């Protein structure tokens, strides 16, 4: 990880218009991604993690979705203002994505070779034969046995874990600067999860690829990520380096998340902690801290106004009124 910032998301807002009102799926998200950094975005279902990342490469389906504001600067150029042909040159090439469900993310009607070669030919401007060799090489790197045979098979001939390896190979085939992995292991069983994460870490380190890892699992981010953003109801509520977040979580939500991870190293007869209540409905959310109904330390002011971002040492920051004094000082 270097100091060079390659991707800057500034005050990103993605709204969906539905019959019931406006869903503010992402409401003012900002973060920086450095070269070679692995950034984890953690949150419950519906917190806006996936929408954030689809917005980065402008793949929100409109309607009903709409990027209502903000900037996504990739090497200083705003991806959201790019004409379609320019952003297509970035998708799959400079920024590629892998998705949650490997069973449905590959086209069942086309051979793996067809699907991999078309990407490589498109972005690397090489002929099909060379592209196929490159694809075989990538499959080999991704740990697919006998890749020169398996490349001509169809997705249904691969297991879930193998398909995710294919997705990773495909995602990295054009040496992207950023790999966005949207819950890459959530649909896999636990033994395969570890293998896939290890593979991603190994390959992205080798190729120097920065990673945005979206997940709901704290275990996954702890092992993989340099920095963490915790999302709740469409906003980032806390961010910081992984060690800081785990050692001294500031936001009550982050604290709750960490407490609800089962620990084997501490003998206890207590029931496993869970954060009470449900995530809020993000339709027409009032200006308040969206976490206050579930927060054990909620105060009056939490119901009235969204808390400002409070910075701590080591680049950690959180949005919570508990740190009101610091908030006034900033």
């Amino acid at each position, binding site marked *: 990880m270097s100091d060079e910032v390659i991707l800057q998301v500034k005050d990103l807002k993605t709204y969906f218009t539905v019959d019931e009102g406006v869903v503010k799926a992402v409401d003012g998200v900002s973060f920086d991604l450095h070269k070679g950094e692995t950034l984890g975005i953690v949150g419950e279902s519906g917190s806006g993690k996936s929408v954030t990342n689809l917005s980065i490469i402008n793949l929100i389906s409109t309607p009903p979705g709409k990027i209502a504001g903000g900037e996504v600067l990739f090497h200083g150029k705003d991806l959201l203002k790019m004409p379609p042909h320019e952003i297509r040159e970035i998708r799959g090439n400079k920024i590629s994505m892998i998705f949650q469900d490997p069973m449905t*993310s590959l086209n069942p009607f086309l051979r793996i070779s067809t699907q991999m070669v078309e990407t490589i030919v498109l972005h690397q401007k090489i002929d099909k034969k060379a592209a196929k060799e490159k694809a075989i090489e990538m499959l080999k790197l991704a740990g697919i046995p006998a890749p020169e045979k398996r490349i001509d098979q169809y997705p249904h001939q691969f297991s879930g874990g193998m398909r995710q390896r294919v997705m990773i190979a495909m995602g990295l085939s054009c040496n992207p600067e950023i790999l966005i992995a949207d819950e890459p292991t959530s649909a896999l069983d636990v033994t395969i999860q570890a293998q896939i994460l290890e593979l991603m870490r190994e390959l992205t380190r080798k190729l120097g690829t920065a990673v945005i890892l979206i997940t709901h699992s704290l275990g996954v981010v702890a092992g993989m990520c340099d920095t963490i953003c915790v999302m709740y109801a469409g906003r980032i509520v806390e961010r910081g380096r992984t060690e800081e977040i785990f050692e001294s979580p500031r936001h009550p939500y982050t604290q709750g998340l960490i407490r609800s991870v089962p620990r084997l190293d501490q003998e206890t007869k207590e029931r496993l902690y869970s954060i009470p209540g449900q995530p809020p409905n993000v339709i027409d959310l009032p200006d308040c801290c969206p976490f206050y109904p579930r927060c054990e330390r909620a105060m009056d002011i939490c119901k009235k106004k969204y808390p400002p971002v409070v910075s701590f040492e080591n680049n950690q920051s959180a949005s919570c009124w508990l740190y009101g004094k610091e908030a006034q000082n900033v």
Partner: protein
Amino acid sequence: MARYFIRRVLSLIPTLFIVITLSFFLIRIAPGGPFARERDVPEAILQNLMKRYHMDEPLFKQYLRYMKDIIRWDFGPSYRYRDLTVNEIIDRGLPVSMSLGVISLTLAAVGGIAVGIISALKQNRWQDYVAVSVAVIGISVPLFVMGPVLQLVFGMKLKILPIGQWISTNGIKAVILPAVTLSFPYFAYIARLSRASILEVLRSDYIRTARAKGLKESVVVWKHVLKGALLPVVTYLGPAFSGIVVGSIVIESVFLVPGIGRPFVQSALNRDYTLIMAEVVVYSVILIIANLVVDVIYGLLDPRISYK
């Protein structure tokens, strides 16, 4: 694949046997007969007629006689069209209905899929609304309204197309109006079907992957969407084909097309036993073969299906 194909073709034989046997007895259970008229035929004449067509024999003996003939693809004499055998009626009418049906269904499939693609890609825009409205009209306006309207406009007013009859009298132009009329409801249905299934595929995960790879929208549609989206259309085309090629009494009446649809429908009203049986056999053979072809196309389109 080859073994599967042969097995499917062979399975035609028992299926046909059951279909023929069932229909043979069912028709005879129905009240009335080929020689029943409003005015009673004198007893002696009726006796002679019955004897001439072997209808005085016990039913089972008639059945065996019929099965013996049918194996040689001999459908016997028509009870109603006295000078013609059923084979002659079929040989005259079926090729006409076949060609009309194939032309209409091709028009319907090409047009319907094209309109389906356009309206799915332009969902909820004016192109989509126009296409959906045309499809609703196509499904709801009956052929006997559509046909005369087209005759009036293109035959009577514009005088650019013959109003009726077939290639032998009016040349190749005679095909156009009946084919277009007949294709319309099929076209409309295929357009709706392909629109719906393209929309479904467009929302699928693998299309999101294709877009995330930076592919052009046209490549996404032609290479990634269509193959999967056309499966339901192919499924529909099988039965549609067997329905359309055995003729349409409406089209044949409105446009005076010498097809097989009219004789077939009238045979049922006339209790023309042999012709009814011929219709059953012809329709079954075509339906079974059409379904087999659909299954083969399915296997070619979808790699997850393999035949052993």
